[in-house]
């Protein structure tokens, strides 16, 4: 049981942004995808979500291949985008109802969970509002609540901490920990490692469209020859240098 990305090459209109990527996330694992802007993190995510067609390679989740059974695959994936994407016509309650309908959740079981999440993110008194009128942080909370409500085996989270207040960041981290404890998989892209490492112990470094190393932050430091006195930010300078040498 795992997310398997095998020899994935892909991008936009024939131009490969990611090249021959291999990645595996096993049940109960959370993996952080790190790299500079334009390294291919979002492109990788778009492939996993079925928003881009792979030029080569295959993505499967718990033995369900994305290109062969897209709906069965998507039913196992929940996504929190970097920028909230909402339906302007739907109230907060209806966003949750749509999630229940789409993921075929039992209403009787889903609503107590939904109320728990809403309370955690202080949205429980706004069920009848149109989230399109919320602030960006509150909209992001709607995305988080919907994704964790879906109760899928894989959570894909793109830059989750931007715009969230510290309380929401702490809640999100505890939800990710809870998810991995329940044998779910998490794939997260982020630049905010201080927060991420509270929930994620394994990272994949993506640069120039390829994965250079998968390992713990300490293993990554060793791989790039960072001194104990160097901050982790130096890694990004090295990646930038590599890009310029390419």
């Amino acid at each position: 049981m795992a997310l398997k990305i095998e020899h994935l090459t892909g991008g936009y209109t024939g131009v490969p942004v990611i090249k021959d990527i291999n990645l595996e996330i096993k049940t109960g694992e959370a993996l952080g995808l790190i790299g500079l802007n334009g390294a291919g993190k979002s492109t990788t995510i778009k492939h996993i979500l079925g928003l881009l067609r792979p030029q080569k390679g295959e993505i499967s989740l718990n033995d369900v291949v994305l290109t062969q059974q897209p709906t069965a695959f998507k039913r196992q994936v929940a996504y929190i985008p970097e920028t909230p994407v909402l339906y302007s016509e739907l109230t907060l309650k209806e966003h949750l109802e749509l999630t229940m309908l789409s993921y075929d959740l039992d209403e009787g079981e889903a609503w107590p969970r939904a109320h728990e999440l809403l309370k955690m993110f202080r949205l429980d008194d706004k069920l009848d509002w149109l989230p399109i009128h919320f602030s960006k942080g509150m909209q992001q909370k709607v995305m988080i609540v919907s994704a964790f409500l879906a109760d899928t085996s894989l959570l894909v989270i793109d830059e989750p901490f931007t715009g969230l207040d510290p309380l929401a960041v702490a809640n999100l981290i505890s939800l990710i920990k809870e998810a991995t404890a329940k044998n779910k998989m998490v794939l997260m892209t982020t630049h905010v490692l201080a927060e991420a490492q509270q929930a994620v112990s394994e990272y994949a470094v993506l640069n120039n469209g390829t994965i250079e190393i998968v390992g713990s932050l300490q293993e990554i430091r060793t791989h790039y020859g960072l001194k104990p006195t160097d901050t982790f930010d130096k890694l990004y300078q090295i990646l930038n240098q590599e890009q310029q040498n390419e």
Partner: protein
Amino acid sequence: MNELAKKRLSINFKQSLKYLMLVFNDFFIIALIFMFGALMFWYAQSMKTMPANLWFYKSIVGAILWLPLLAGHLVTLVKKADLQFLFTQDEQMDDYLKPMLAYSLILPTILLLLVAGILFPFATVKAGISPLNYGLSVIITFLFKFTQLEIEKKNLLFGNKISNWLINLLTLLVLSFGMYYPLIIIVGVGVVLSMVGYFIARKNQMFDWRYAVNKEQARKNQVYALFSMFTDVEEKQVNIKRRKYLDFLLPKSLAKENPNKFLYRRSLLRNPENLNLLVRMTVFAILVSWLVQSWAWALGMSALVIFLTVYQLLPMVNEFDSNIMYRVYPIVRKNRGQDLVKVLTSGLLIQWLLIGVFWLLFLPIDLHLLEAIALLLVFTLLVTLIYLPYKTKKN
């Protein structure tokens, strides 16, 4: 800033021209010529038979001259990004707005001259206004529009805003009564000019950027809404309304729902593009039926209206395709055409019901009318059972 304004005006003019060419296509021009011709014929005939010098004629002239003032707000072409990039330019905005104000006067001036020209025979022959007084009234009406735009311009600064409705009401009163007592017009102009003077004298030069951006967006939306009645307008922004009072039309339980039906229902009720179309077309069918006062014509026209409503609502099927979450969620898109048919069927049956009820209220009730109501229902069902499934099959 003046250069920026001119550049934006030139781009805006080209864009408006593009849409105007689409709106005033060959068929519409021909229809307009016919309609205008019919109106002028009716006007010429009425002028022969109409009694002269009735007491209310002068106020009618004033009120009609006032109508062109409703068209055309101050065009500022201020963009949201200006909040970021021009926010240091408060004191230069006066420079920026000068060409904007001149541009904003073009449309109302053309409309005023057109209306004044058409109204001239009635005003001078039937209402007994001397050509000199009439000419002066037109010039004063133009001055009212100028001051109205000047006030709109001054409203863009922080401080108390003068409502457009207040100015419009004042202008209507002055023009309607001023035709009897020219002194009122002069006093009215004096009041408006002193209001402008008060505004101009204000020390505050802080530009209210957020207000300006919202005002311009609202103005643009009005223009786009007008264009979108004839053609697709890609720049148009849709402002969704919650409309809680319509929630009773939504199913109480999710048991028989699926994601597509769930979304289409809410789009039909809350997206003004869709609901306004349904309401507009229904009102149109009712009005036409009332005007023709014949069951046969009412049936034919209403059937056409129902068909056109469906035809214009068909693009709803792809409405959510641009939403990434719609693609990420495991929503089966295979049968969404059928889901849309089910949702639109409810909408059309409500339309049929409303038209039927109004027929019973406004048309002579006889067996034919009842037959017409039944026939309209059959037509509606045929549209939903045969035409709609065929058109949505591909989706």
